[in-house]
């Protein structure tokens, strides 16, 4: 009997105190500083970087259930890599950096990303990086919980609220790069040129490279002469591809600029709503569970004695009250959820327009450029035949 009372007392204390303990949980916010180059790096120490548009990773199902807004995600898929580009540029450790609409062999390092979560409060993205030889640098998930101060108007406004994540990605890449020798970086440039050349004239330049079967990593067997006229022309074409990327990046910059203010406003508001919504949801669930436990406990108590009856009634009343407040909290959470949906719908339509605009321009430019590149490819083959008096040999991989 005495033991039963102890259990009931324990349940009552838990029922009263548990929600308070949840709400009072402390959260740690990381503040990662960007590793910046102290001196200007030599040209040989720089490599070019291409960051592919991130995978928006929009889950299947209705927006009301997932709370992932497709057009905001698509805009984020361009906004995040563009900000990562800015962050990498700010570090001073890299050569040219471009946001890429599709994979290319014009840059020495390719970065890919996938957005797993982004609601202004929590951000998670998976990032991978591979150099042009095929060697993997990183394949890692980055997460951060965003502090309210990250949205302060008085902060350095060049710093994104998610800056810690971008700084961490940049620092990881810098750490790997700093471990590589200048000779390796130079070789990357050479492999990059050869892989680009192999795309244009596979029959001529495929044999300069070998790809290891197991690792898939490319190694140069020999290098063309510095006076190889065909290679000089190919580098001219490569320059044009980079010029095209420069132009495309101007369009992405427009999207980035036009999106930055409304997107930050949305994140700030959504963060607060997300915190409140999560708290209310959690609180509602716990209250409902503990209320149900108290009700079961009240039914289990032996009600023969006065004390037992009193305890049983207390538990029943307490349990009922907990379940009732649990439902009230759930209703309140639903209101916040609706607020989040409404807040997102405005940005969603803005983002949709911006993404359509930039994608339209990208398709137009890429379409024109593709025609030019096909033409150059054929012209180079003709020039090769003219200059060497030989037809292009069939590529070994063809």
């Amino acid at each position: 009997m005495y033991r039963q009372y102890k259990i009931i007392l324990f349940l009552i204390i838990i029922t009263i105190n548990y929600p308070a303990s949840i709400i009072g949980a402390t959260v740690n916010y990381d503040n990662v500083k960007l590793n910046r180059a102290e001196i200007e790096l030599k040209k040989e120490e720089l490599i070019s970087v291409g960051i592919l548009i991130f995978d928006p990773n929009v889950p299947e199902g209705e927006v009301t259930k997932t709370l992932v807004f497709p057009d905001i995600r698509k805009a984020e898929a361009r906004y995040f890599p563009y900000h990562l580009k800015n962050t990498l540029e700010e570090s001073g450790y890299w050569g040219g950096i471009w946001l890429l609409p599709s994979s290319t062999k014009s840059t020495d390092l390719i970065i890919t990303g996938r957005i797993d979560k982004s609601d202004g409060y929590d951000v998670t993205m998976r990032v991978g990086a591979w150099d042009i030889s095929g060697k993997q640098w990183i394949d890692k998930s980055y997460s951060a919980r965003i502090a309210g101060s990250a949205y302060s108007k008085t902060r350095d406004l060049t710093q994104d609220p998610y800056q810690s994540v971008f700084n961490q990605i940049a620092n990881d890449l810098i750490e790997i790069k700093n471990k590589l020798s200048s000779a390796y970086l130079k070789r990357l440039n050479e492999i990059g040129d050869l892989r680009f050349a192999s795309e244009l004239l596979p029959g001529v330049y495929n044999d300069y490279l070998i790809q290891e079967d197991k690792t898939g990593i490319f190694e140069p067997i020999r290098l063309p002469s510095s006076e190889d006229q065909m290679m000089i022309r190919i580098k001219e074409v490569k320059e044009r591809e980079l010029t095209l990327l420069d132009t495309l990046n101007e369009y992405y910059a427009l999207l980035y600029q036009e999106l930055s203010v409304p997107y930050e406003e949305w994140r700030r508001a959504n963060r607060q709503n997300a915190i409140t919504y999560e708290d209310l949801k959690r609180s509602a669930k716990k209250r409902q569970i503990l209320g149900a436990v108290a009700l079961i406990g009240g039914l289990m108590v032996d009600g023969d004695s006065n004390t037992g009856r009193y305890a049983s009634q207390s538990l029943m009343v307490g349990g009922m009250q907990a379940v009732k407040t649990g439902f009230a909290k759930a209703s309140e959470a639903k209101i916040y959820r609706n607020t989040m949906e409404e807040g997102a719908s405005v940005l969603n339509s803005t983002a949709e327009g911006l993404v359509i605009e930039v994608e339209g321009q990208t398709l137009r430019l890429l379409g024109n450029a593709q025609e030019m590149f096909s033409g150059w490819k054929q012209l180079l083959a003709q020039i090769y035949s003219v200059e060497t008096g030989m037809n292009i040999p069939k590529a070994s991989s063809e």
Partner: protein
Amino acid sequence: MKNFVLILVLITINGCAVQQMSGGLSNPSSPSSSSGMPSPSLPSDSQSSQSSSSSTSSGSPSDQSIDSETGMDPMPPKPSTSSGSPSDQSIDSETGMDPMPPKPSASSIFDDSLGDFDKEMAGERVVIAAANKGSGAMSGQEMADLEAIMEAELNGPVELESDTQADSINQSIETENIEIPEEMTGKESNRIPSCVEVNGVGEDKIARQLRVFAVKEDDPSIRTELWKQYLLHIGKTESQIKRCIDNTK
């Protein structure tokens, strides 16, 4: 009855002929040299140039190069000019036969197309810069980029083939000395807004480049943006620019 039999025989013969023809067209294994990717700068694919060189096996490597460089369909070999020497060509022109117009080499087509691409990209960037800053001027970096690209365009592409280096140098010198108004066609001169000096007196290098760019631009929206940049560069106020552009329209 005889007529009927005759008609039947004729129909049978014609039917066989039609069947044979249609069978030939639908044959998937028939060679098709036009299956290459479309390329406006390249009239024929390399396969055709290879076949031309094999069909004129008695010709010198230079004969091959002419076919390949022009990218034109190979001309059938003329028995009277089988040696294909340059003197033969001059004799053709002297005798009043249709002379072949000088065709650009693949190398020069390549260089020209690089220049065209640069021009296109520079135009894009001007439009973006205008969209980005509204009525504001281009940044120093953008202006420097534009200047570099257009300078390359004005000077002409660098010839990489040693035998054409001299021509290339002459070409670039000629381009440097071009008086723009003399170069302009009627269509191009109509593209100059009324408020802009036709002879471009006193304009600096960047303004000159923007002018050249604008008069050569076929797209009216890009051309308008280029003129806006030109007028901004020469120090016109926004209201002046607006008036000038509106009058041109």
